[in-house]
């Protein structure tokens, strides 16, 4: 059976072959970022998770693959440094103790492409820092990522605290668990659950339309 492109990418990540992975992505016929994220990066990383579940690789292999994937993402989709004043602001973070940051890194990148000014905090940001930063910076959107079940109770706390900020930001909740479990009970009816990249894109579209209509 021919192996899929996502599987090829997963193998390059696991081999630590960042140069070949970079080339592989650059050679894809469709260079649309959303398509690359949805059809290659995300399934490749999920595949690596499955390999761990099948006892074919260890956590150490996963760490290596994560590092390589991060490098490739950073290299290909660099944060633009142009100093144009962007109107809308969004910040993205993983809950404290969360190390699975690649998904939210991709979301951050998509928001930037949409013309948002973003702050990307990556893995494991304690609530107090998130709160302090959000108080000063006043983002319209705060994106949270959760991938570990034992972190779920903490999620509630994050949503409640950040949702109560004076400028009333929209709280988006994503991460691997959003697709697998019903996170509704943890959102205090304040958060918007984003199950995958498509939903994030859809949310952005609706947000844009609301703005136009408003």
């Amino acid at each position: 059976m021919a192996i899929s492109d996502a599987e090829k990418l997963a193998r390059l990540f696991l081999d630590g072959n960042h140069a070949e992975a970079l080339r592989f992505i650059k050679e894809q016929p469709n260079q649309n970022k959303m398509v690359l994220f949805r059809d290659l990066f995300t399934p490749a990383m999920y595949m690596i998770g499955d390999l761990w579940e099948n006892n074919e690789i260890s956590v150490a292999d996963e760490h290596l693959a994560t590092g390589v994937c991060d490098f490739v993402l950073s290299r290909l989709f660099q944060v633009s440094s142009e100093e144009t004043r962007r109107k809308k602001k969004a910040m993205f973070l993983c809950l404290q103790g969360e190390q699975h940051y690649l998904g939210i890194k991709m979301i951050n990148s998509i928001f930037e492409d949409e013309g948002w000014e973003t702050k990307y905090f990556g893995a494991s940001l304690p609530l107090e820092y998130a709160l302090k930063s959000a108080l000063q910076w006043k983002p319209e959107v705060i994106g949270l990522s959760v991938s570990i079940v034992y972190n779920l109770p903490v999620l509630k706390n994050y949503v409640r605290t950040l949702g109560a900020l004076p400028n009333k930001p929209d709280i988006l909740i994503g991460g691997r668990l959003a697709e697998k479990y019903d996170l509704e009970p943890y959102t205090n009816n304040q958060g918007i659950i984003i199950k995958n990249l498509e939903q994030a894109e859809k949310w952005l579209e609706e947000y844009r339309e609301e703005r136009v209509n408003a």
Partner: protein
Amino acid sequence: MSCALPVPYVKIDKDGVILVRSQKAKELLNQNTETIQDCFDEESHNKLMKYMVPFKGEKTFEANIKGKDQPFLLCDVSVSWEEDFAHVVFIPTGNQVQGLEEKLLELRMRLSTTDFELFEKKEALEEALKRLDELSGPFIPISEKMAFVPLFGDITESKMITVTGNALKAAYEGQFEEIFFDLSATGEIDENGVQKLSELFRMLHYMNGKPVKIIGVKPKHARQLNSLNVNWPVYFESSLKDVLIEHLQIGKAPQS
């Protein structure tokens, strides 16, 4: 007896109910765990279930355990079945992976501060420097039997490695009897550069059966070349001009 085992160990029945636990297991796991499933992080349950059907021999897998002190602890879990009972041993590996995690974190910090435009410029610069090295020791055939290699700029190890590759290839392809290295345009020579230079001369000597000749040596170079106790497999000539005149006269001699 099993209580005194020096590792966290539990004995379970085929429903996963914990029947016996070692002292170490009591220290590792939550007290209120009744089944083996309770000990595993939810995301590791699928993995665990693959080992909950009796099999022969023993199997080991990685899983995240809900520890008493740490809610999320990576362990190597070994399972073996004895009829309707299974023996399960937990070996925490968290510490081993921790070093790796710290390295990854460093890498991540580095990534987030890396300016990739600069990074790419640096790569381009390295490429240009290598190209410069290549051009700093051109192998020039003057006649079928004579070749001339002027060395431009400072002689460093990296430059000599590049020059050596090109020179050996050219010397192999041509049939030169005399190869002249010209130091007239050479700046500083560092110690590693000298080492590589003497290696190149030795290799060319073996290939050609004749020592190479060095011309254009300045007093400064003479001191540097001598200071390193290298037994130079070369002849020294004074300048390219003298060498050419000499060769031209030899060429002319039969005609006159």
